[in-house]
């Protein structure tokens, strides 16, 4: 199994280590519930160095990426990022990712750990067929790069202290908290360049910090030291998963795979059908026009029941109940105190308030389709 540059830090902090996408990662340090609530109420620090980073640079980088990814990259000014997807010709998702425009001709893609091998192979294949391939330099910089997510409503109270100098690239701001959502800037940290984007995977305000692998331990230590008195706790993949499920962010291998399209997954907003030709466009346009065969729904358990889990069957309710599909993500919601999940059902059963039943160990427990996100912050 692969280890991130923060592996020994996790051991020192008492992290419980598990395998995830070929990596040995902390699932929790104290308790998933504790860490989840810390992120909702104060702040949490996550090692996301297992995620892959691909640099795409050169005069034809934009044209290349815009025909390989679903969202419209031309909307990005320097120092901005967007959520986007990479599809095959059938519209199936190869990966979902963040694409940042770091400079006029330079893009950074943040990709899933479990997908990085397939992604890079796909990108290389696409590039070989691209007319202006001489104008694109594709580099997998995952090995040399570490990353941390720092998430929660109190992060803005202390992150600036760790990065006191004015940004030197991207969106040129004085301090990290001047960044708006999806903006990214280059800051200097102990002589190294680090990129800080205002984004995350928890539904809370927060940042992702991308730094050279050899610097990531000192970034982690600095954030943890400055954040402790603001309620910051190290948080593992367990809390990362419950947090993202509550706000219905997809996780590759659960909501997304090569046989599922972004339209089916409810991600049409990130598919720019009007931008011109791109891989998968024909199928996606057809699905958008005629409606997909299945739709991703969010649901809540309505009675006292065990939490739903991936692969549990979803049934319609009532006398002539039929099997509708399968749960793809499910857990006990730490914020709501009930079972929640996501699953694929035929479009007729996708409206909020539609009653469903989830089969748990041979018995069916009542659930109801709810709007996304399942958990919404009260303002």
């Amino acid at each position, binding site marked *: 199994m692969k280890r991130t540059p923060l592996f020994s830090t996790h051991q020192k902090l008492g992290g419980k280590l598990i395998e995830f996408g070929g990596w040995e990662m902390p699932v929790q340090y104290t308790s998933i*519930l504790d860490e989840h609530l810390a992120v909702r109420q104060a702040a949490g620090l996550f090692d996301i160095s297992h995620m892959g980073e691909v640099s795409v640079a050169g005069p034809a980088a934009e044209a290349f990426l815009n025909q390989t990814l679903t969202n419209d990259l031309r909307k990005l000014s320097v120092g901005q990022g967007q959520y986007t997807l990479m599809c095959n010709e059938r519209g199936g998702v190869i990966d979902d990712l963040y694409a940042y425009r770091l400079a006029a001709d330079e893009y950074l893609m943040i990709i899933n750990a479990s997908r990085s091998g397939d992604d890079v192979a796909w990108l290389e294949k696409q590039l070989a067929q691209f007319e202006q391939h001489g104008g694109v330099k594709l580099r997998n910089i995952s090995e040399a790069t570490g990353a941390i997510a720092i998430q929660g409503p109190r992060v803005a109270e202390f992150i600036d202290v760790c990065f006191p100098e004015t940004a030197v690239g991207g969106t040129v701001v004085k301090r990290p908290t001047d960044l708006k959502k999806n903006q990214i800037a280059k800051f200097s940290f102990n002589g190294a360049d680090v990129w800080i984007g205002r984004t995350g995977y928890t539904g809370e305000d927060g940042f992702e910090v991308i730094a050279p692998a050899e610097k990531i331990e000192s970034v982690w230590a600095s954030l943890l030291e400055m954040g402790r008195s603001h309620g910051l706790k190290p948080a593992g993949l367990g809390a990362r998963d419950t947090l993202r499920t509550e706000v219905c962010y997809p996780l590759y291998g659960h909501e997304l795979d090569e046989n599922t399209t972004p339209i089916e997954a409810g991600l049409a907003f990130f598919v720019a059908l009007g931008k011109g030709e791109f891989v998968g466009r024909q199928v996606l346009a057809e699905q958008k026009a005629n409606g997909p065969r299945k739709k991703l729904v969010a649901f809540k358990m309505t009675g006292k029941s*065990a939490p739903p889990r991936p692969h549990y069957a979803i049934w319609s309710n009532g006398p002539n109940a039929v099997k509708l599909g399968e749960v793809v993500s499910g*857990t006990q919601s730490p914020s709501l105190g009930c079972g929640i999940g996501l699953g694929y059902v035929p479009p007729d059963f996708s409206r909020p308030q539609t009653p469903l039943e989830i089969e748990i160990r041979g018995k069916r427990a009542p659930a109801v389709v709810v709007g996304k996100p399942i958990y919404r912050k009260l303002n």
Partner: protein
Amino acid sequence: MSQIPADLKYAKSHEWVRVTGEMATVGITDHAQHELTDVVFVELPQPSRKVKAGEACAVVESVKTASDIYSPVSGEITDLNKAVVDNPALVNSDPYGAGWFYKLKLSSPAELNGLLGPDQYKAQIGGG
């Protein structure tokens, strides 16, 4: 360090048994609750069910996973802990007390000899 009370018997699958005459109380160990972490749901056997030693008869769910609980001994279920169903966190906070699962009337008391003592269980979990 996990607690391992001296007066209990243990199964390799991390259940404990407290014997009083022909009655036995069953729960999961401190080590088990620590490994499971945050218990959010407990499903107990049907009342009066006859269980065999080694048979899956309850389920404990943490935030992340569902785990079967195997009866360490055979017998007929006589009592279920309704408090732990209403408040599954008792499994974490008091695994040998308020977090018990069920009581049964032993049908094969000799099975108790095949269970682990506290020292053997401690050795199994790597010294606690």
